């Protein structure tokens, strides 16, 4: 369409778009630059480049935030959640797409409604219930909470993928004597693998980044996630922003790398699921 636009208009358009990019990138650039500065340098001039890159900030952040352990906890809870969501979500989505049983519409509406409930509506009884059952500080129990919260979006996303598959493919397999489960797991599921990837990416990102649930249910030092450990860093070493920014970068880097490789999946997933962090 730009053949219809004058050169001047096009320039203004790009200037505004670039302004938006600067707004989006500026705080992130400050994070990266500050991660390489001493705290004295940051206080003296927040916008200057580091005289000598302080790689030691990363080593100190790694040690003080116990990254080896807290990152592993994040990986564990994220991995478990992704597996649980893909397994239970794809089955439920298949049922909602294929089986027109009575009540399935109401189940769909129920799932939809739970995506909009405030966490505070179920957080407190859940916490005291988990405490009674000794499930607080359990990574598996926490991943069940994430599964409950993030699976409705994955069910609806996968449902549209299942609906796009012609029923004839499955009918042929049924004729050959396959059970419903075999049709689902061998025939249909492989066909929706792009949808599964999107679900895994979004559920993984949300779990990796999540704060309210993890700070409430994973309090013990041994089970804290990287984000929760990072949060408690602020109070402890409040003046050392170089180190805090280095820790921030360690937590953010894997997600950004993932995003750059699979931006389509991120955008598709967040657009359809509309899960706000």
């Amino acid at each position, binding site marked *: 369409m730009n053949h219809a636009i004058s050169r001047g208009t096009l320039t203004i358009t790009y200037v505004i778009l670039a302004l938006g990019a600067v707004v989006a990138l500026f705080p992130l650039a400050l994070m990266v630059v500050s991660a390489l500065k001493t705290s004295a340098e940051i206080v003296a001039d*927040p916008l200057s480049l580091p005289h000598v890159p302080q790689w030691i900030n990363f080593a100190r952040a790694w040690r003080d935030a116990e990254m080896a352990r807290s990152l592993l906890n994040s990986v564990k809870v994220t991995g478990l959640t992704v597996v649980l969501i893909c397994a239970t*979500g794809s089955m439920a989505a298949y049922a909602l797409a294929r089986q027109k049983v009575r009540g399935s519409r109401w189940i769909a509406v129920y799932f939809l409604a739970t995506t909009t409930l405030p966490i505070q509506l179920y957080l407190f009884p859940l916490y005291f219930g988990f405490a009674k059952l000794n499930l607080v500080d359990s990574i598996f129990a926490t991943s069940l909470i994430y599964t409950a919260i993030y699976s409705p979006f994955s069910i609806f996303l996968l449902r549209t993928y299942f609906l796009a598959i012609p029923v004839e493919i499955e009918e042929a397999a049924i004729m050959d004597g396959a059970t419903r489960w075999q049709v689902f797991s061998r025939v249909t599921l492989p066909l929706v693998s792009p949808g599964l990837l999107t679900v895994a990416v979004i559920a993984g990102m949300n779990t990796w980044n999540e704060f309210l649930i993890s700070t409430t249910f994973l309090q013990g030092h041994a089970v804290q996630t990287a984000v929760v450990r990072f*949060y408690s860093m602020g109070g402890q070493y409040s003046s050392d922003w170089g180190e805090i920014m280095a820790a921030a970068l360690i937590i953010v880097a894997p997600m950004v790398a993932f995003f750059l490789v699979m931006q389509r999946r991120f955008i598709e997933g967040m657009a359809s699921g*509309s899960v706000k962090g």
Partner: protein
Amino acid sequence: MWFLFPALLINLLIILIPALLTVAMAFVSWDGTSDPVFAGFDNFRAMFADPVFSSALLNNVKWTALFLTVPIIMGLVAASLLLMVRKGRTFFQIVYFLPAIIATVVIARVWQGMIYNPDGGLIGWLHIFGFHLDDPLAHPSTALLAVASVDLWHWWGFMAVIFFAAFRQVDRAQIEAARLDGAGYFQLMRYILLPAIRPTIVLMMIMTVIWSFLAFDFVYVLTQGGPAFSSEVLSTLSYRYAFYNFTMGPAAAVALVISLFGLVATIFYVRVQQQELES
């Protein structure tokens, strides 16, 4: 059908049953450890008597108004401009979207330390030019806006990408025809582009209302609702009642109020989405 069973079971155990217990909890007096005692509407009376409740509710309303306008307008402008250019679309989309994928706690700390910090942040850097600003998070009059600004930064790019995806579905012939008739940017927006993506805008506005009443992370991390409860919102108030004051009744009562606002928006949301489910 049993395929639904695992997902449904997890959902019922984690969400529905505790949610029903919260409804019950709103009518008892309980500190989390001793035996709960039936309290009728006492918790609601206590909640309404707390001046922080009404200011938190008002903060949620302000938050909603802000998010219904600023990020949606910024998103629409950026998305429509992206539609006008050919080169750099992917680049701008990636950059705009980037803040949306970063952990809220990390974003909060970056803004706290690198932007709002008078010693070592952008605010402090402005001293060089004679602007002696203080940390906006530390003042009751500016704290809420300062917190909301961080969420706005985190959020507007996502809106831009969503709206851009919607704009791309608009019939190109229609846009070209309008252009040939001499329509400028504002006429194109007013008569072609905005009406064409109305359903997307409506859905995003409904979701914005829901999310605005759920807002928690940025407030909790940046100000803990302070100073002097000036940036307290309903979700942080509920959390404070439960885990700092150990008064489960009022915590549950506030949670019900949040849900009530969410419910109204949810009814609209389910209606809109159901049309999609029917298809």
